[in-house]
């Protein structure tokens, strides 16, 4: 249950971005969550909805999560494969000289915000 800590971190950065850009409120936050990032999307959403009520700009914000597939690269044979299916052991050649290419990220991709434009004369 470390999702809350990660959410608090993300919310703080979104608040800062909102303040820096002088927006009125944030209506959407898009995040990329790697499927082997250890973040559980359901828990993350719950934590986000709890945390947003305690912020200045995010009260009405909707969270969208884009799940990024975990891919592992095999140094022995040069193939890549799906991490969640085979783990550390390459299904092509059996080597465990492998490393994760992608899928462990937790990224704030973008935010959608509303700003009130003053009527110019």
């Amino acid at each position, binding site marked *: 249950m470390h999702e809350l*800590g990660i959410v608090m971190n993300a919310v703080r950065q979104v608040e800062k971005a909102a303040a820096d850009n002088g927006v009125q409120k944030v209506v959407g936050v898009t995040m990329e969550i790697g499927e082997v990032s250890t973040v559980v999307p359901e828990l993350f959403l719950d934590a986000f909805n709890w945390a947003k009520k305690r912020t200045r700009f995010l009260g009405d914000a909707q969270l969208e999560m884009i799940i990024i597939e975990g891919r592992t690269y095999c140094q022995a044979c040069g193939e890549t494969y799906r991490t969640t299916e085979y783990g550390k052991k390459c299904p092509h050649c059996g080597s465990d000289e492998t490393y994760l290419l992608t899928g462990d990220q937790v990224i704030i991709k973008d935010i*959608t915000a509303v*700003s009130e*434009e003053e009527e110019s004369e």
Partner: protein
Amino acid sequence: MKLMETYLIKEDIISRNNEKAKDVRSLLEGKGVFYINLMSSPGAGKTTLLSKLIPLLSAEFRTGVIEADIDSDKDALAIERETGVRVIQMHTGGACHITCQMSLEALEALGTDGLDLIFLENIGNLVCPAEFDTGADMNLVLLSVPEGDDKPLKYPLMFEVANAVAVTKLDVAPVFDFNGDTAVGNIKKRNKNAKIFFTCAKDGAGVEELAQYIREQAVKKIRKD
């Protein structure tokens, strides 16, 4: 008139922690301090092992300890009573791991001046602490006999990030189905390079071997004469 706009952020929360870890490493590099992150399940014997390990090291290395817990100052008081070294207690207020920001604040609170070796006793948890780089030079992971020799298979990341694994509570092995060879095999399956020690803090078995390993690694960094 209301305007709707999208702002690109592209910030990785995990890599942000790792960036912070670089700050911690360069701070400690400059100060000549060796920093050890001690991790295990709750109750594996982190505090007890530390209280036996520190007296073997503190004559040669001026040692400090950061105790991290969700609540209570029990561990810091025990370390102070048993070893007399500089120690602070950090409370995470519910958080199940130490982020690098917390690690940095704790180092500042402890004070790095006049110290050569600092232990961070992380929250007892075999999952989350492994995911957050604290900026330490060494990850020391404990695996206690009652937990079972299969833990490296069930909590892989913790054993993948370990530089050294110390099996603890060796004295109770006769009453548990803990097989030392199986444990070594399971650890090696996760991490070929991990150094493995078999210890018992109660009778001191294996603690000197672990202390010697820490001495060698610390000297490499701080080059004491």
